[in-house]
């Protein structure tokens, strides 16, 4: 219909109905050959900074140590959803012309490619979202950000994920919504809690996110245990997925044992004196002085899973993640030289200057 068909026009059209293997950030060969534009890396840093300044609840990001275009994200499942307390680890990769095009996103928490957590989260790790171009609906726009992608993902991890499936806005068979939620809740605790903490599918998870998961695990422990206890009777029954997805059997008995073992192990590492610890970052993080409140809490047999006990982990993590972003920013601003002046300007808002100290910056530091 056109003399000069808009080359990219077709991309968005085909993305509406059909998707390629193009979605996978880890298989992206083409990106590796192109270096990101200065605008691209600058914008990724700003995205990360905005996430650090104003972190949405239950959402954590860590920049990759070696590649500024890669971002590691952890979403913890929200209250009142079958995902509650689960750890959903994502890898995002921004294209060289980001933000003109959306990042590629992969869910890494799939039990090694075995579990489909949501109609929009395939077991291959594919995330079906219109702004990623992997689903129909509003497309990506450069005014969106890594943050808006993660918030969209949070919104599909909702109370009744059954309805995410097109054509299933109404329950097809009575009880299907609940049946699906029961399965998701089981898989969340089995794969997105136990599996993630044990790291049974051998993922390379950034140490900071490991730390957050360990802390959050202890805070949510009561919830996990009560779900397992309540559903012990289901053990051995087959999980009947309303979408006929092949699932195994409920395993609450073994899950309960795993939960208890993980908890014992984490508490042991918390109470161990620093000298006996292994040198890996997550363990040493856990015993840092700022975690004393957690230490006290965990000596009780029962932890509250209300919001106030979760606060410390969030703010701690927030602090750590700032440092991580700063480190990444420092590193990359050295690399692209020209932007560092402007960058420093915006960084003054929230970070402590590391090398150059002027009068004003000292004041800032004192205030902080």
């Amino acid at each position, binding site marked *: *219909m*056109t*003399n*000069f*068909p*808009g*080359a*990219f*026009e*077709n*991309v*968005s059209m*085909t993305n509406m*109905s*059909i*998707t*390629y*293997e*193009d979605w996978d950030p880890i298989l992206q060969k083409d990106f590796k050959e192109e270096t990101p*534009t*200065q*605008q691209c890396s*600058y*914008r990724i840093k*700003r*995205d990360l*900074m*905005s996430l650090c300044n104003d972190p949405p609840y239950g959402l954590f990001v860590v920049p990759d140590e070696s590649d500024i275009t890669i971002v590691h994200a952890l979403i913890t499942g929200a209250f009142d959803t079958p995902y509650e307390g689960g750890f959903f680890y994502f890898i995002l990769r921004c294209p060289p*012309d980001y*933000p*003109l*095009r959306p990042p590629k996103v992969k869910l890494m928490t799939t039990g090694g490619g075995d579990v*489909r957590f949501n*109609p929009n989260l*395939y*077991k*291959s790790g*594919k995330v079906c979202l219109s702004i990623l171009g992997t689903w129909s*609906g*509003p*497309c*990506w*726009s*450069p*005014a*969106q*950000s890594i943050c808006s992608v993660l918030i969209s993902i949070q919104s599909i991890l909702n109370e009744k994920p059954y309805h995410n*499936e*097109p*054509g*299933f806005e109404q329950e*097809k*068979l009575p009880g*299907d919504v609940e049946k699906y939620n029961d399965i998701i809740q089981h898989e969340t605790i089995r794969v997105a809690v136990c599996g993630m903490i044990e790291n049974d599918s051998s993922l390379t998870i950034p140490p900071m996110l490991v730390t957050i998961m360990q802390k959050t695990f202890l805070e949510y422990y009561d919830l996990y245990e009560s779900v397992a206890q309540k559903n012990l009777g289901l053990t051995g029954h087959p999980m*009947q*997925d*309303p*979408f*006929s997805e092949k699932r195994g059997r409920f395993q609450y008995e073994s899950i309960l044992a795993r939960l208890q073992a993980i908890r014992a192990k984490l508490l042991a590492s918390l109470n161990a004196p620093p000298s006996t610890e292994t040198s890996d970052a997550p363990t040493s993080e856990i015993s840092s002085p700022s975690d004393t409140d957690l230490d006290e809490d965990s000596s009780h047999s029962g932890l509250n899973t209300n919001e106030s006990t979760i606060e410390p982990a969030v703010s701690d993590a927030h602090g750590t993640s700032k440092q991580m972003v700063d480190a990444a920013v420092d590193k990359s601003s050295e690399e692209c030289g020209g932007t560092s002046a402007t960058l420093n300007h915006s960084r003054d808002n929230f970070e402590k200057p590391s090398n150059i100290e002027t009068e004003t910056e000292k004041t800032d530091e004192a205030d902080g």
Partner: protein
Amino acid sequence: MGDEVREADGEKRVEAPTNQDNLIMEQQRQIEEEISEAIPLVGVKEDLLCALEKEYAADPIYTMKAKDLSSKYSSIRRMRPDGNCFFRAFAYAYFERLLTNKDEYKSFYDIVSKSKDDLIELGFPQFTLEDFYDTFMEVVERIGGGEMAQDELYELFNVTGQSNYIVVYLRLITSGKLQRDADFYLNFIDGNRTMTAFCHQEVEPMFKESDHIHIIALSAALNVGVRVRYMDRGDSAQVIAHDFPEGTTPAVHLLYRPGHYDILYEH
């Protein structure tokens, strides 16, 4: 038991490996991308009649229309057909005019320098706007500083990063105008979409082609008159003109051929 339901829903949701159709479409997309990228973002000024007669040598209707057009316009500047051509053509043509038009520059500067705050007020996150706004204003300020020459503008618009950031910002201004005056503009869009949904789908994303509504909103937002000449297969010997907003004196002249915009220069 859920099987029938599943089948009725079709195979769309099956986690199928790449099939042949996908591969073909992907290949087609790549070919189109290559063709598009072979054309500069902003081309050089060409003699209108020469360029169009060569293009439509075997086409009597278009040749006739090219002749008609050449009675009013001397030159054409082609744009890359990447779905952004309207915005890029608009920006280039108007910036080019501003290089020599100080009075108009002043009022344009006032409008655009306020635009970021207007967009923030509408709920656009500041940090995502800033890069685009800064790039856009940097160019605008260089134009006003009187230090920029025609060929610099040309070079600048052919640097992908800067050129695209200017397009992004114009898209955001357009979206802002449509949302601000949604009551009015809703009359022009089909279906039951909200204006915000329309903007998310059709205005803000890069590489999305522009329609009348984009042109009306952008020309109104920036107070810049646009005359579009429509050249198609219709039997009229003349190339019809549309002015946006209606009744204004055009500052920018564009040639529209189905799916694509280029810049026109009057005699």
